[in-house]
């Protein structure tokens, strides 16, 4: 019953909050990301082994990390939908899933581009890339299920259940793929486990990480705002928001 007491469960309140936060996250994201990427892609020293090709790491690593985090955030929202039935967190799933899927796709594409100079081929069944690919399938499943229902409330619940099932499976999938990889490939080049990374390379990476995090939050907020408006269309507060005045009295 206390779900009615909690102000955030009200679409209008969360819309206002998202509206207030969005500009801050957008500005910070652009700022931090441009500093981090320019530093990393232009000014950071070249790697003594990989030359300039390693620079794609400044995009690949943050995308790969946050493609995972977005899924966990989605699963947390799914839990809230199923236990406390907050509609907002259901809409959050819809808002976050495509952002996560795009991050996953970026991680895959940059991984493939990075693979060309490193392994001499665009695609290698490397554990990390394979895991990312499966993650992309998981996102695809959640999105497909969300949109497969006439009744968006059902789509939301179904997607929430699937996201939770997925998050239980994610560690198992990850472990199995790692294991499969060591079994079939022996010692392959592990890309990120450089024993120590020079501070001149580390700082731009940290900035890029922060920038990607801010950007993800900003994108999710933007999509969440849209979804709230779409779902609440016809309510007086939405008309007021869109036209400056209530539409019917």
């Amino acid at each position, binding site marked *: 019953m206390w779900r009615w007491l909690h102000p955030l469960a009200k679409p209008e309140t969360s819309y206002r909050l998202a509206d207030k936060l969005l500009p801050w996250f957008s500005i910070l994201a652009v700022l931090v990301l441009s500093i981090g990427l320019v530093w990393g892609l232009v000014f950071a020293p070249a790697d003594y082994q990989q030359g300039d090709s390693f620079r794609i790491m400044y995009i690949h690593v943050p995308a790969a990390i946050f493609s995972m985090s977005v899924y966990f955030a989605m699963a947390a929202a799914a839990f809230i939908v*199923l236990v406390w039935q907050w509609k907002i967190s259901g809409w959050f799933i819809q808002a976050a899933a495509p952002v996560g899927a795009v991050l996953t796709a970026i991680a895959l594409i940059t991984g493939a581009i990075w693979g060309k100079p490193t392994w001499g081929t665009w695609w290698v069944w490397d554990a990390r890339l394979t895991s990312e690919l*499966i993650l992309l*399938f*998981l996102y*695809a*499943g*959640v999105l*497909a*299920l969300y949109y*497969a*229902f*006439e*009744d968006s409330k*059902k789509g939301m*619940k*179904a997607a929430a*259940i*699937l996201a*939770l*099932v*997925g998050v*239980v*499976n994610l560690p*198992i*999938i990850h*472990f*199995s*793929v790692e*294991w*499969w990889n060591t*079994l079939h490939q022996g010692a392959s080049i592990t890309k990120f486990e450089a024993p120590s990374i020079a501070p001149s390379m580390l700082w731009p990476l940290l900035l890029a990480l922060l920038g990607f995090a801010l950007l993800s939050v900003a994108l999710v907020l933007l999509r969440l705002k849209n979804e709230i408006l779409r779902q609440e269309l016809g309510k007086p507060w939405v008309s007021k928001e869109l036209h400056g005045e209530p539409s019917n009295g």
Partner: protein
Amino acid sequence: MKLSSLSLIMWVIRRDLRVANRQRSEWLNPLIFLLMVITLFPLGVGPGEQILSRIAPGIIWVAALLSGLLGLDRLLREDYEDGSLEQLVLQPVSLSMTGLGKIVAHWLLSGLPLVILAPLFGLLLSVPVSAWWVLTLSLLLGTPMISALGAIGAALTLQARRSGTLVSLILLPLLIPLLIFATSAIEAAAMGLPANGQLAIIAAMSVLALTLSPLAMAAAIRMSIR
């Protein structure tokens, strides 16, 4: 007093087997499909014993997964359409228990036949006789996981449009670990190595799936039925 949990599980299993006995093609078709897929491979890559025995574990398990997905629609669709599912929701017993009954019934009709046919698959694809035992065990321990996860998929898509491909889309990624460990177990056995580790992991995954998926399935059925 209505039926208790255990008797309700038995009731569901007994009824599902009785219905399946009247509609044999419903559960025989996926099995025939599986046999056909397995026949296609020697025709496609050539009957050479070496290639076949090399790729046999993968073929058998990929085909098992696909045929498992094929038969999933049967799991809940009929009960949903004729109203029996509503009656099961209205029992004074946790819906997860009823779901467990449905999963067991589905496994008896889709998983158990694979276990029995395992030596035949091994024979057709030149799996060394020494690995037949592990092949059979991997199917015995692994197929319950297909039924358990499949039940979630079937329950989630009861009211969805285009449910056929959708079920495969949401389930296949979740079944990848099973494929990896099962094929590796058979490969290890074919090379004369112990496969206990892989089999133990498969068993653990199946137990986990059987414990958790009835909960997700119950939530999905409640979502679908209203």
